[in-house]
């Protein structure tokens, strides 16, 4: 049998200790494998893989700049991918059902050997594109990230600083000239986003529009009274300011 050219690999992980670990284990399990480069993030890994054209790329899943799954997508069909992770329940579950190989940090030597044997067998074929699996992984990586699409923080400028105001701190929003005023029990701030855009982004369970120019946080409402014109007026916890409810929003307070 003619000696096959030595296989090449790169290893990507944002922590050097972890790169050292996988490199050390690969040397033991597969001495002929040439580790031709190491990368500290997903973007570097893709760039390095493009320039060195290794047969195999070992990718940590959580890395800065570009995660391992996106890097694998970029390299689909160009190299054989092995994912490496310390703990990613969602991913491991997906790997079990997919054609892609993975290693758990710290990997058992026996487990590394199995991966290396599988890789040797696979090197004779073209790398699989793995489209479906990677899409599934991306989806799972995104799950739990945005528990809700509603606005939870409002970015506003307060005394020259940019401040992130939690929506749970806000009493109400009110349109004023070109700006929208954000009122909390302690301070007020101005934002550029108009009320009609805010209404679409805020959680409708958390905030109610009570006037063309006013959106109030329901939990901040202390009581409702009526003004001389008979319109309901909202009193707030933590502010002396009252807010009038305009006719088209009267129905909101009928059940209360």
């Amino acid at each position, binding site marked *: 049998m003619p000696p096959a050219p030595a296989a090449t690999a790169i290893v990507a992980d*944002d*922590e050097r200790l972890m790169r050292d670990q996988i490199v050390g284990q690969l040397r033991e399990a597969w001495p002929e494998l040439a580790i031709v480069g190491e990368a500290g993030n997903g973007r570097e890994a893709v760039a390095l893989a493009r320039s060195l054209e290794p047969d195999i790329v070992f990718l940590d899943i959580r890395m800065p700049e570009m995660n391992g799954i996106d890097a694998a997508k970029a390299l689909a069909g160009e190299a054989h991918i092995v994912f490496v992770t310390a703990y990613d329940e969602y991913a491991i579950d997906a790997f079990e059902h997919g054609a892609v190989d993975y290693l758990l*940090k710290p990997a058992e030597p026996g487990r590394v050997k199995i991966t290396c044997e599988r890789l040797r067998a696979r090197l004779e074929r073209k790398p699989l594109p793995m489209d479906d699996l990677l899409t599934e992984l991306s989806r799972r990586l995104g799950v739990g990230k945005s528990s809700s699409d509603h606005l939870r923080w409002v970015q506003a400028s307060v005394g020259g600083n940019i401040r992130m105001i*939690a929506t*749970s701190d806000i009493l109400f929003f009110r349109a004023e000239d070109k700006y929208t005023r954000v009122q909390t029990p302690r301070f007020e701030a101005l934002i550029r986003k108009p009320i009609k855009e805010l209404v679409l982004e805020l959680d409708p369970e958390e905030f109610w529009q009570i006037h063309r120019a006013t959106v109030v946080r329901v939990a901040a409402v202390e*009581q*409702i009274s009526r003004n001389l014109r008979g319109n309901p007026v909202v009193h707030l916890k933590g502010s002396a300011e009252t807010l009038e409810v305009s006719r088209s929003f009267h129905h909101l307070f009928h059940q209360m």
Partner: protein
Amino acid sequence: MSSSEVPPGNTAPRARSREPLSDIRSGIAVVWWGFFDWLAVVSWMKLAVVCLLAMILGGILNFPLLALVVIIASLIIKVIASGKRRAEVTAEEATRRAETEQLERTVVEARMQALQAQIEPHFLFNTLASIDQLILTDPPRASQMQRSLIRYLRSAMPKMREAKRPTLGQQLDLCTAYLEIMAVRMEDRMQLAVNVPKGLTSAVFPSMMLQTLVENAIKHGLEPKAEGGRIDIGAEVVDGRLAVHVQDSGVGFRPGPGGVGLANVRERLQALYGDRAELIVDLPAQGGTRATIMVPYEIGAP
């Protein structure tokens, strides 16, 4: 939610006017509402006896029709009033129960979230993998890192009964265990500066809040940045309040998964101090995130 008018019946008019006419009017009102309330609470048995007496009295005084009208009116009012009364009592009870339940739930939830949010499996497994590697290459450092992990785990274990109120100094110690671990793992991708005056280490500061800010700074600030950055921890007293900040030079605040920890801090601050404490998140002009917790300044037990 009720309108601002005074509920009838339960309150006697407070302002006493000297004018005789309004004195009489308010007198009648008191008697009327007193009667109304009496009707609402009196048992049907008693009412029947009273009606019988009224009928006899009406017969004796030769006003049988008037007596009958009064009795029928009383019976109608009784039906309405007791219904209203029952509804009021039920509503009051429900409100009280809801308030107590809400408070209890807030406290329990805050405690549970505080416990849950602590040990992140990703952190734990990555740290153990790092220790495993160090055992091969640098055993003394492996031992050191493992001790840091033990210290961190011990601090993160649920402590339902805390004998003393936690101090800023203790909280800072617990953070250093975590930061020591991350310093080994991230190497030169993390620089740390702690600037807490010695005098403030004995100040009372709630548990696990500084930890949350520090972990957020690493996880959402520095780790997603290829070149990493620095973390500044500082404390000062401003207007009688203790302000503790954690600033990182990371990728900047991105609303999302990090919000859970901050929401928990916010809720616990609210439960512990009400409006006297706050959490502020600023985005400094030079980049990164600066989170500040302000609590009333109190010296803790030594």
